[in-house]
C-alpha cells in the first residue's frame, strides 16, 4: 500500500473532535501560580514610578515584578535575519525606562488565582510621562536620545537600474500600501513554567513552532545549560507565523517558576493578544518600473517603509528582507533595486504572518503589472506572459539572497500554470459575461495575481525512528506542529519508506527532551525538510530490518520486501514472512540472534540543504462592488498552485482554503487601527474583523504537480503559503476591473469606507 499522494484521513483528529486535546490552557499543575501582565496604556512614554503596594496587599498575591526584578535578564534575541544595527531595538521582558506601545509589559503579577491576579494587576499604579507617539513609518523619529527610529535599510539588487530607466519606453510609478494585520490564531498564547528542583530541571509547556530555539534562548537568558531546560509542545491552536516565537511572557513564567519555586501559568486574553502578540504586513512602497514598448520589464526600483512597531523582535529583518528578495516573482527583471527602510513606530511590534513579505510584495508587483498593461493598452494576462521566466530557463538564478540562501528558482512552468488557471475559471467566457453584466450597470470584474513562493528552508532536519516490540513505529522529530497535519504527513512518508501502515506511525514533535536538535515549523519547511529526513531514516530502519530478517528467514536481504509491517520472502510455496515487531524483538540488546548488530530496530536520518525551493501559483478573483456601501463581494475565486508533489492532497487543499480566507481578511476586512495618540482601536473581534463562513466563498482549487523540486527525491515543495499569497493582489485587480478604473486600488484592505471614498472621488458613482 502506498500512502504518499493519497488523501488519507488525519491521525490528529480523534482527540480533537472528542474534546481530548491538550492546548496550553488545559495544562495545570498542583500549587500553581497565575501570572497577569500589567501593560502600558500609553503608546510612548517615560516610566516615572510604579506603585505596587496596594496590589501586594491583596490576599493571594505572591509577587509582583517590575524591570528591576529582571534587570539581569538580557533582551530577547533574533532568531532569523540578524542585520547589523538591530540590537539596540530589542525588547526586554519588562519595559525599562520607556514604554513604546500600548500593551508593552510593565509589570507582572503572580497570584493564587487568575481572577485575583487580574484584580491585583488593576491595582498596580503605573505613572507614565507621555511622549509624542510616532505612528507613521514614512516619518523618521527618535527611538531614544541619539538613536533614530531607522535601525537599518535592507538593500538588494543587481544590474544597471539607472540605465534601465534611462532607456525605458515608459516608466510607471506607484505608491502602494498594505495594512497592518496578523495571524490571530483562535487559541491565544499561553505558557506554563515549572521548575523541578529535585532534578534541577526547568520546563515550559505551551511551546510551539520553534521549541529548540526557544529552549536555547530561555536557557541562555536565565543562565542555565540547554540540557537543563525542556520545552513541551501540546496541541497548538493555529500558528500562522506569529505563534511560538519567543515572547516576553514565555521568559517571565520560566524565570518566575525558578525564583518563586512554584509552577506559573499565563494564559493571554484576546485583548492582550490583539495588542501584544506580533502584528505584521504594514508596508508602504514607492515603486517604479521601466518597460520597453512591448511591455517587457527593463527594471524595477522599489523603496519601501516597513512599519516595525515598538521593538525589533525575534524575526529581526525577516519580513522586509523577504519582501525585497521575492518582489520580482515569476518575471524576468533584468535590473532590480530595492531599499527597505525598517522603521520603529509606537505600535505593537511586528513579526511574520503567513507568506511574510510576499503577500505585500506580490500586491506591489502585480499592481505594477496591471499598471504596465494599462499604460501600454495590453491585457494583464498578456503583459504577464511576456515577462515570465520560461521553463527552459530553470533553474533560474536571481542574484539576491534571503534567509541565508541564494535565490535560485528550482523548477517551474509559470506560463503553463497560468494557462491551467485561465482554463479552470473559463477566463474568456468570464470576460464576456462580466462585460454583459457591466453593460447592465453592475460593477463586476475579474483580476489575477501570480506569484512565486518559497518553502523548505534548511539548513537541516533530523529524525529518529524506532520500531517497538508491539509494532508501533515512533518518529521523533525536532519539527513542530501548529495544527496543519504534520503527524499525518510525516507518518505517510515514513509508512511508505518503511513498509508499514501509516496508522502504526506515531509522530512525536516539539519535545526538546526527546531529540537534541530541531528547527521547528515555519517557512513551509516541515513537509520538505522533516519529510526527507524521515524518508532517509525510515530507509535505514528498513535496511536494518531486512538484514536481520534475512538471517532469520535464511535468504538474502534482496529477496525480501516489507509490506504492511510484514517482512516477506517470495510467493507460493517459497513464501515466508515475519512481523516487523518480531524483527524488533530479535534486535533487543538481550537477544541472542542479534549478533553484532547495534541494538534496537531504529535509526536516525538527517537531511541538509543550502537552498529553499520555490512553488508557485496563480490566483483569480471575480468580485462585485456595491456602489452604495462600498462593499465588495467575492463571487468566485480560483487558486492554482504547483506543489511539486502533494503528500496528502486533502491537506494541501485545506492549507489553500485556510490561507485564502486569511488573505481575504487582509484584502477586505482586517486592519489594526490606532487613534492619533497611538491608542489601538482594534482590541476585540468586534473591531478586528476576521472573515466568517458568510464572507468566505467556496473557491476552486487546482493543485498541480508539474514542477517537482529537483532538490529532494520526492520532489516536495511546501503548501502553507500558496493560498494566501496573491489574494490581496487578485482582489485589488478585480475591483479595478469592476469599477473600470485601472490602478484605483492602491491600499489594502479595501474596506467599504475606502472604496466609497474612491468612488466618490471619481464622481457620479
Amino acid at each position: 500500500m502506498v500512502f504518499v499522494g493519497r488523501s488519507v484521513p488525519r491521525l490528529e483528529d480523534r482527540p480533537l473532535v472528542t474534546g481530548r486535546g491538550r492546548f496550553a490552557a488545559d495544562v495545570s499543575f498542583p500549587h500553581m501560580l497565575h501570572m497577569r501582565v500589567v501593560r502600558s496604556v500609553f503608546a510612548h512614554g517615560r516610566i516615572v514610578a510604579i506603585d505596587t503596594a496596594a496590589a501586594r496587599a491583596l490576599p493571594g498575591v505572591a509577587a509582583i515584578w517590575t524591570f528591576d526584578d529582571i534587570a539581569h535578564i538580557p533582551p530577547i534575541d533574533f532568531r532569523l535575519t540578524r542585520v547589523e544595527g538591530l540590537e539596540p531595538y530589542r525588547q526586554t521582558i519588562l519595559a525599562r525606562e520607556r514604554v513604546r506601545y500600548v500593551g508593552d509589559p510593565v509589570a507582572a503579577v503572580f497570584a493564587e488565582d487568575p481572577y485575583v491576579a487580574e484584580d491585583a494587576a488593576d491595582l498596580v499604579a503605573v505613572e507614565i510621562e507621555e511622549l509624542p507617539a510616532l505612528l507613521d513609518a514614512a516619518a523618521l523619529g527618535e527611538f531614544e536620545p541619539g538613536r533614530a527610529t531607522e535601525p537599518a535599510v535592507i538593500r538588494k539588487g543587481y544590474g544597471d537600474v539607472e540605465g534601465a530607466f534611462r532607456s525605458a519606453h515608459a516608466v510607471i510609478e506607484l505608491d502602494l500600501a498594505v495594512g497592518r494585520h496578523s495571524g490571530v490564531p483562535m487559541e491565544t498564547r499561553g505558557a506554563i513554567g515549572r521548575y523541578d528542583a529535585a532534578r534541577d530541571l526547568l520546563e515550559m509547556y505551551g511551546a510551539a513552532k520553534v521549541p529548540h530555539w526557544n529552549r536555547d534562548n530561555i536557557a541562555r537568558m536565565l543562565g542555565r545549560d540547554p540540557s537543563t531546560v525542556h520545552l513541551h509542545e501540546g496541541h497548538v491552536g493555529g500558528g500562522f507565523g506569529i505563534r511560538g516565537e519567543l515572547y516576553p511572557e514565555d521568559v517571565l513564567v520560566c524565570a518566575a517558576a525558578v525564583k518563586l519555586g512554584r509552577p506559573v501559568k499565563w494564559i493571554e486574553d484576546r485583548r492582550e493578544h490583539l495588542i501584544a502578540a506580533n502584528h505584521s504586513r504594514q508596508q508602504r512602497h514607492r515603486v517604479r518600473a521601466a518597460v520597453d514598448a512591448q511591455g517587457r520589464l527593463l527594471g524595477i526600483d522599489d523603496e519601501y517603509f516597513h512599519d516595525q512597531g515598538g521593538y525589533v523582535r525575534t524575526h529581526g529583518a525577516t519580513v522586509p528582507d523577504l519582501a525585497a528578495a521575492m518582489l520580482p516573482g515569476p518575471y524576468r527583471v533584468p535590473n532590480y533595486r530595492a531599499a527597505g527602510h525598517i522603521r520603529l513606530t509606537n505600535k505593537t511590534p511586528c513579526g511574520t504572518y503567513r507568506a511574510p513579505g510576499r503577500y505585500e510584495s506580490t500586491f506591489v508587483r502585480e499592481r505594477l503589472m496591471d499598471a504596465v498593461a494599462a499604460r501600454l493598452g495590453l491585457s494583464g494576462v498578456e503583459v504577464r506572459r511576456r515577462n515570465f521566466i520560461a521553463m527552459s530557463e530553470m533553474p533560474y538564478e536571481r542574484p539576491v539572497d534571503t534567509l541565508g540562501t541564494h535565490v535560485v528558482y528550482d523548477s517551474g512552468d509559470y506560463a503553463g500554470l497560468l494557462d491551467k488557471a485561465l482554463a479552470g475559471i473559463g477566463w474568456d467566457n468570464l470576460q464576456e459575461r462580466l462585460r454583459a453584466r457591466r453593460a447592465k450597470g453592475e460593477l463586476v470584474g475579474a483580476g489575477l495575481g501570480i506569484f512565486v513562493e518559497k518553502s523548505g528552508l534548511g539548513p537541516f532536519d533530523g529524525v529518529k525512528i524506532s520500531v517497538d516490540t508491539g509494532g508501533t513505529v515512533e518518529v521523533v522529530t525536532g519539527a513542530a506542529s501548529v495544527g496543519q497535519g504534520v503527524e499525518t504527513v510525516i507518518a505517510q512518508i515514513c509508512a511508505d519508506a518503511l513498509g508499514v501502515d501509516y496508522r502504526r506511525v506515531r509522530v512525536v514533535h516539539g519535545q526538546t527532551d526527546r531529540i537534541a536538535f530541531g528547527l521547528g515549523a515555519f517557512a513551509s519547511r516541515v513537509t520538505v525538510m522533516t519529510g526527507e529526513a524521515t524518508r532517509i531514516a525510515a530507509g535505514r530502519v528498513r535496511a536494518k530490518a531486512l538484514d536481520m530478517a534475512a538471517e532469520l528467514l535464511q535468504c538474502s536481504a534482496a529477496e525480501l520486501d516489507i509490506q504492511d509491517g510484514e517482512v516477506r520472502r517470495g510467493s507460493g510455496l517459497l513464501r515466508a514472512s515475519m512481523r516487523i515487531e518480531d524483527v524488533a524483538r530479535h534486535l533487543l540488546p538481550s537477544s541472542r540472534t542479534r549478533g553484532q548488530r547495534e541494538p534496537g530496530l531504529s535509526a536516525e536520518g538527517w537531511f541538509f540543504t543550502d537552498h529553499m525551493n520555490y512553488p508557485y501559483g496563480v490566483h483569480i478573483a471575480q468580485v462585485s462592488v456595491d456602489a452604495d456601501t462600498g462593499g465588495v463581494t467575492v463571487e468566485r475565486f480560483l487558486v492554482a498552485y504547483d506543489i511539486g508533489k502533494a503528500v496528502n492532497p486533502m491537506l494541501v487543499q485545506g492549507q489553500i482554503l485556510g490561507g485564502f480566507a486569511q488573505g481575504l481578511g487582509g484584502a477586505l476586512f482586517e486592519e489594526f487601527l490606532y487613534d492619533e495618540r497611538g491608542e489601538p482601536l482594534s482590541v476585540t473581534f468586534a473591531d478586528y474583523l476576521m472573515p466568517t463562513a458568510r464572507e468566505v466563498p467556496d473557491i476552486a482549487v487546482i493543485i498541480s504537480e508539474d514542477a517537482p523540486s529537483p532538490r529532494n527525491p520526492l520532489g516536495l515543495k511546501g503548501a502553507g503559503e500558496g493560498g494566501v499569497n496573491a489574494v490581496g493582489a487578485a482582489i485589488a485587480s478585480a475591483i479595478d476591473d469592476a469599477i473600470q478604473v485601472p490602478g484605483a486600488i492602491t491600499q489594502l484592505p479595501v474596506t467599504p469606507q475606502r472604496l466609497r471614498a474612491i468612488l466618490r472621488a471619481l464622481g457620479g458613482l
Partner: protein
Amino acid sequence: MSEKAAVRLSVNGQDYALEVEPRRTLVDAIREDCGQTGTHIGCEHGVCGACTVLVDGEPVRSCLMFAVQADGKAIRTVEGLADGDNLHPLQRAFMEHHGLQCGFCTPGFLMLAAGVLEREPDISDEDLLDVLSSNLCRCTGYQNIIKAVRAAAAEMRAR
C-alpha cells in the same frame, strides 16, 4: 472578591456541586471546576463561539454566562457528544471532510451544529450558513466545516 455561592451543574449527565464566586464564568467553571477542558476560550467577549456549549439544549456562549446562572441546568459539552466509542455523526463528518486543522474551534462548531440540528433537523443550507457564520475558525476557511455539517445533517435525517 465576594462571597461564594453554591451552584449545582449537571455536565454531560454528571452532577457537580460547586462553590463559586458570582463573577465566575460558566466556561471557567466547566473547564477548571468540572475539569472538562474540551470547551475552549477564544475571546471571552462572545464573538468567536469557541466556548459554545448546550444549556438545556440551546447553544450558549459559556464565556458570556456566569456559572451561577446555570445553576440546576443541564449542560452538554463536546466530551458528551460521542456515545462511548461511537462518535457522533458530526464528529465523524468533521474528520471525513477535513473540517478541522488545529481543532481549537472545533468543539464550539460541533456543539453549535449539534444544538441547531437537534432542534431543526431540516434546516436549509442558507440558514445553516447563517448559523455557522456565528463562530470563527482561523484555519480552515470554513468550506470543509460547512460540508461536514451538511453531510452530518443528511445522515442524521436519514436515521
